[in-house]
């Protein structure tokens, strides 16, 4: 029993890593209609920026804030100079552009900081709390709390605020939105900027756990995408829950279902997606998209 609960808790903290990235993906998708493969790479770059600042002697908290601000700007610049050209065109091309961006950013990180593992200073004190007989490290707990906070913020942004509405409107139909006076270009930049800032938070949260390498997020990206599809592209709460679900079920399946084991546990989220989407094509919490003829 103790092991079971511990496995669940382990799953939650791994799931939180996926959730962090998934939220950034949702944000960009809601604001631009794109799936951004570069999100993980951008998060890694942000983490490196924070890392470099701490190396220069900046206090951790300051380095983090500076990195978030820098990421906001970087996201906006990427939109302005690069993505702008592809936003109206074929979505496949835009996705491939984000893939190129991912490769480029990975390359830049490797070039500047090499492929060596860099140790990112921990954000939370070492130590653990005991929950129902299972241990939960402060860092996992902290990550979970931050994720929940961001999730709530995003939900409020999308549903409750004028900015959120405008961001969504632009993603749906730029021209229609422009006819209502929405500053399309600026909103797209804001969308990318916010997502990059959020990605920075994700990167900084996971960097101490995974230790910083240019490819740190590559694997998490696949899980994050799975969580995004499973939870429903439009729902921050949905993707976080989906990410946790994936983390937990994966652990349990590996431990308790013999033939899956730890090597095939990665199949679990996909089986889950498949089963869920057959019944609910919009994902667990997504809004059903109506296509009329």
């Amino acid at each position, binding site marked *: 029993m103790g092991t079971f609960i511990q496995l669940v808790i382990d799953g939650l*903290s791994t799931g939180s890593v996926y959730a962090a990235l998934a939220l950034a993906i949702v944000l960009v998708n809601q604001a631009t209609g794109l799936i951004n493969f570069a999100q993980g790479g951008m998060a890694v770059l942000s983490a490196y920026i924070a890392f470099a600042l701490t190396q220069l002697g900046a206090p951790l908290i300051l380095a983090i804030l500076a990195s978030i601000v820098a990421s906001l700007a970087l996201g906006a610049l990427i939109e302005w100079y690069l993505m702008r050209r592809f936003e109206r065109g074929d979505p496949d091309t835009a996705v491939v552009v984000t893939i190129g961006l991912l490769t480029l950013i990975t390359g830049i990180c490797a070039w500047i900081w*090499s492929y060596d*593992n860099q140790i990112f200073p921990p954000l939370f004190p070492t130590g653990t709390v005991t929950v129902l007989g299972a241990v939960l*490290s402060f860092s996992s707990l902290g990550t979970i709390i931050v994720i929940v906070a961001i999730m709530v913020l995003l939900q409020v942004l999308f549903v409750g605020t004028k900015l959120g509405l405008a961001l969504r409107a632009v993603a749906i139909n730029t021209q229609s939105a422009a006819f209502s006076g929405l500053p399309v270009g600026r909103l797209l930049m804001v969308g990318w900027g916010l997502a990059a800032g959020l990605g920075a938070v994700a990167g900084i949260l996971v960097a101490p756990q995974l*230790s910083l*390498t240019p*490819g740190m997020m590559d*694997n998490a990206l696949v899980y994050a995408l799975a969580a995004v599809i499973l939870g429903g592209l439009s729902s921050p709460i949905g993707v976080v829950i989906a990410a946790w679900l994936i983390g937990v079920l994966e*652990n349990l399946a590996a431990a308790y279902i013999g033939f899956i084991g*730890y090597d095939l546990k990665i199949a679990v989220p996909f089986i889950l997606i498949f089963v869920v989407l057959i019944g609910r094509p919009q994902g667990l919490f997504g809004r059903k998209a109506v296509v009329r003829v």
Partner: protein
Amino acid sequence: GCSRGGGGTSSDSVAPSPGITETAITLGITTPMSGTTAGPGTCTVAGVTAYFGAKNAAGGVKFGDGKTRKVEIKPLDDGYDPQKAKANYDQLKDSVFAMTAGLGTPTNRAWREAAISDGVPQVLVMTGDPIFSDQKQSPWQLGFVPIYQNEGEAFGTLLATSGSEHKVAVLYQNDDYGKGYVEGFKKGIEGASNITIAEELSYEATDASVDGQLTQLAATGADVFFNAMSITPLVISSLNKAQSLGWTPNWFLPSNTSSPGGILQKANDVSVYPGIYSVAFTKAVQSPAFADDEDVKTFLSDLKAYADYPDTPAFPHCAWSYQVGATLEQAFEKMTSPTRDDFMKALRSISDFSAPLMLEGTAVDTTADGQPAVSTVFVQKYNGKGYATATSWE
């Protein structure tokens, strides 16, 4: 097919093989320099480049035929993709004298047969796959690092002869690397009734976390943890996770992920573990214990000066490929004619060579069939600063 120059199969002992002139010799490397294994991959290039960089700066290497040659290294990135490794080999084979130091089992296997049929040396490669050291199957090949089985077995033997009861938890990387270790370990404990394996779990090299596995293993209450893991961040997080679960077994870590500076000191507090064991044949360059070692100092300054590698490497592969350089030099010095054939003969006749950075008691020996250039390993125990050879279980 009329435009073809001489292939690589020349057995004429007078005509020099490709990639060697009166004044220079070129060596090719295909290794991952991008992607997940880029860290160790770049290291394999850096070490050998640094070694020969220093030699070249000092005038070059004096070959057995009396000529002094500069050694050039041509590295290509294969991104751990067998197909690209083969392409790189195809690209290099007519312009280099020999291929060396490349990292990875599938990437080396992809062109092993081509190298055999072309007669191109594929030597001192960084894989513990035994096939590369089997002379019958692989006449043009030779591995460098100890085969994984040796490392696992050394630890298994130590444990089996400890005279006390042990319960072992095993976590291994799901590939030939991890499986090789486990296989060796099991061979080491074969027939020893004092050892039981409580649980054996695997993980994927791409996993972001192994917390689940550790939780499950901790639940067995094993007192020895055989952790055949090659991913640095995962080793660090494992050390932390086990501690937070209150599970403090004796650890075994493989040679390439046991670095004191790169790993153990970056974990929260490894002193809670009664013993951390590893196997090694190389001085741990990050270890404070070796900070004043002449070998280590030269090595690090060569890396900086000739391989553009300013940091102290987090991977042991830099040191290994530095030793590859030294071993190659030995072979060059014995070569009497500039042919690949002669090179292979020379290479296979090195014994008891103490390459730089080697731990006392280990040596390069290329004369034993079925074994790579380095096959002796020591089990070591971490003492809070560095490793000390452990001859018996304490």
